[in-house]
């Protein structure tokens, strides 16, 4: 062995002195004995369920016993943790249902209750029973003749939380003709189809009737309803302005309130979705309008879909003919748009986003689907964005999820789905943000080429400088102070730009705002449910940074450049995984490609179970 290695080995062995392996061995033996005792007391139902298990060796009994212990613990802890079920994807307390409606939630006991959600799109709902549609419901004269109308659309989104509570909704039928799709695209640009059409927390931030005034040290930034730290003044608000506050104008109407856009713990079975779509490009006087189609069983668009399962469900999207496209153009004419229409069908800017769980979704976590997806773009020759995926058409984050269905698409497919690379994390724990800010402090000349964001390290002694920042205990919030004090005036530009879009908050502050009915927009529009869904650890004791929900897509691109340049070679996704931040795609599997998937890398057994050769099933649904 090399001399240096010997020294290091000795140092390592010294370093670990004090940990006693005998105590470990004895502790493990004692724990196993305790679990076996528990198992012996509780095994009758296991034997009744599967007598063959008795013939197995003791390890099989032990596995069953461990399951009993886990289940028992989960049930005992249920009321406290259920709101976060499955959002905590790698935790083990994700396996039981609520039997009572929690305070502040609305129980959904019938299909009529489900249908009534559209009357109050901002409340939180919890499903309290398995529900089944009849085929006759969707026939002429039925209560949903022609098919289910999605809850919420882009103009009036569902912005509460829907907790399926481990229950099943069976036999949902969604049908839409090309004309239906046109009429559904109320915001001129998108048509969303699923149980929920459009479920988004941040939509209320774009309400036109709001004026926001962001003040910082006497600097009054009076926006026109949009906080835009980059463009309005040509320079970013500095990181030490993270304490910006928003002054509300009480004369304006608050239309949407809440930190929702979450659908979780719901199983959809035996449903069908059949959408016809005639793409068209309409040239209106001052804008060009195309329709984007978002389709998925749970939602056309949703911010968060967590712990949901879609079984025995088919989704079919079909491009139809020119007549339909022309009808669409006429539809817009009837709406008062003096349109001109140029080769409306074959050269249309078609955006078709289809997923086995949801069309477009910011985050899919702990979901499974065997959806049969069929996409026929038809005669359309220019399909600009055919985004078809087993879990989501487009996603920013897809973790601990599985797809094992079939996809037949003449417009291509992206496996589990297309992961959006130019998005940014909406919530980051403070220590993670500290590391990003430090890494970004000396970056410059960022660019985007061939689908990759690249950057140049501004300071030649970048590594030494960033290491010095770490050693000095510099955080994102104190970065400027440190740089100024140490004469590093050129550093921090990119970090400041990034930080200008994030609010630093504690869970306590969010809770306080909720309790006081404060407009959450001023806190970065985050609910604890959402925070929990984006970060695995217990959120209560974590200080985190929340992305300003008003951040625009092109600004995402700017911020994404900074992050990507700070973490070259795709390291950011690794960094997120290591820090339990749910961003990017990891632990998500296309089982069509890897049927022998070993489910390594996280604690699969905590919330999942899988029968031989079958789709993984969240324990919640067993």
């Amino acid at each position, binding site marked *: 062995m*090399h*001399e*240096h*290695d010997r*020294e*290091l*080995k*000795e*140092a*390592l*062995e*010294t*370093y*670990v*002195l*004090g*940990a*006693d*392996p*005998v*105590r*470990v*061995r004895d*502790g*493990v*033996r004692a*724990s*196993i004995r305790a679990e076996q005792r528990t198992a012996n007391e509780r095994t009758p139902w296991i034997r009744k369920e599967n007598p063959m298990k008795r013939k197995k*060796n003791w*390890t*099989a009994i*032990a*596995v069953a016993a*461990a399951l009993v212990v886990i289940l028992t613990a989960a049930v005992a802890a249920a009321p406290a943790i259920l709101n976060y079920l499955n959002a905590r994807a790698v935790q083990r307390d994700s396996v039981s249902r609520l039997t009572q409606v929690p305070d502040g939630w609305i129980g959904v006991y019938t299909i009529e209750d489900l249908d009534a959600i559209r009357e109050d799109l901002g409340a939180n709902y919890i499903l309290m029973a398995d529900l089944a549609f009849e085929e006759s419901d969707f026939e002429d004269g039925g209560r949903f003749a022609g098919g289910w109308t999605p809850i919420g659309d882009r103009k009036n989104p569902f912005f509460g939380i829907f907790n399926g509570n481990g229950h099943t909704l069976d036999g949902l039928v969604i049908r839409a003709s090309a004309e239906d799709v046109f009429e559904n695209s109320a915001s001129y640009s998108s048509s969303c189809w699923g149980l929920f059409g459009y479920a988004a927390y941040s939509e209320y931030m774009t309400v036109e009737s709001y004026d926001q005034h962001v003040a910082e040290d006497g600097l009054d930034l009076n926006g026109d309803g949009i906080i835009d730290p980059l463009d309005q003044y040509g320079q970013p608000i500095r990181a030490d302005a993270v304490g910006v506050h928003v002054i509300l104008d009480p004369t304006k109407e608050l239309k949407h309130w809440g930190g929702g856009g979450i659908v979780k713990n719901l199983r959809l079975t035996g449903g069908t979705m059949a959408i016809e779509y005639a793409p068209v490009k309409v040239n209106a006087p001052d804008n060009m309008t195309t329709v984007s189609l978002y389709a998925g069983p749970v939602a056309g668009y949703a911010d968060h879909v967590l712990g949901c399962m879609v079984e025995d469900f088919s989704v079919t999207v079909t491009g139809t003919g020119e007549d339909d496209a022309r009808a669409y153009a006429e539809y817009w004419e009837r709406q008062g748009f003096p349109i001109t229409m140029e080769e409306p069908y074959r050269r249309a800017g078609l955006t078709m986003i289809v997923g086995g769980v949801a069309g477009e979704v910011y985050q899919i976590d702990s979901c499974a689907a065997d959806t049969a997806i069929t996409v026929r773009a038809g005669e359309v020759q220019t399909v600009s964005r055919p985004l078809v995926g087993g879990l989501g058409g487009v996603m920013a984050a897809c973790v601990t999820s599985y797809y094992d269905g079939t996809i037949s698409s003449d417009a291509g497919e992206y496996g589990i789905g297309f992961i959006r690379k130019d998005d940014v994390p909406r919530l980051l724990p403070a*220590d993670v943000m500290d590391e990003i800010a430090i890494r970004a402090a000396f970056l410059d000349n960022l660019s985007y080429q061939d689908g990759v964001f690249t950057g140049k390290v501004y300071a030649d002694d970048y590594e030494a400088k960033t*290491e010095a920042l770490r050693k000095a205990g510099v955080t994102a919030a104190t970065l400027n102070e440190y740089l100024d004090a140490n004469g590093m005036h050129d550093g921090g530009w990119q970090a400041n730009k990034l930080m200008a879009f994030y609010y630093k908050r504690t869970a306590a502050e969010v809770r306080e705002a909720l309790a006081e009915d404060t407009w959450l927009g001023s806190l970065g529009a985050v609910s604890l449910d959402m925070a929990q869904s984006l970060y695995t*650890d217990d959120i209560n*004791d*974590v200080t985190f940074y929340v992305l300003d929900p008003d951040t625009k897509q092109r600004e995402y691109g700017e911020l994404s450049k900074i992050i990507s340049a700070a973490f070259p070679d795709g390291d950011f996704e690794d960094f997120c995984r*290591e*820090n339990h931040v749910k961003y990017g795609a990891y632990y998500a599997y296309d089982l069509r490609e890897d049927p022998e998937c070993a489910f*390594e*890398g*996280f*604690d699969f*057994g905590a919330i999942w179970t899988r029968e031989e050769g079958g789709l993984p099933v969240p324990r919640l649904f067993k």
Partner: protein
Amino acid sequence: MYDGFDFDAYLTSQAAKLTGYCAAITGPADAEDAAQEAFLRLWQNLGRIPNEAAANAFLYKTAARVSIDLVRRRKRFREPDPAPPADDSLSSRMSGALAALKPEDRAVVWLRVVEECGYDEIARRLGRNEAWARKRYSLARRKLETILAERPKGDSPCTNTTVN
């Protein structure tokens, strides 16, 4: 697990190695908890583990995850452990340098240096690929070298502290 697998014998044979490994990541205070948790999870999952090699991989990967979680939790919820008394000995300085590494890097260094694992084995045990293991080890060694090179004031030059 295959017939004839003796978990208790396996526990006895692996306890010292795994405890040391966990201690390298967490420090001695939390190592026993982490090692116990890893053994218990292995025991709970024996039904889907086909052989001893798979058991090793599962055990070490789980131990790393549990240990790193413990370190993060401690970092988040507790004050840092008090620094050891100042001591200019190589061993003490080396310990200080190790403490400055990321927990996962300490795991890599432990596997490479103490258990003399190849990069493929390190990758398998940590659920990563070989390139990752090689890169982390290289970075960790470089970092140790940098830290050890920063001699305290008054320290005389020492020719044998360089880490490759």
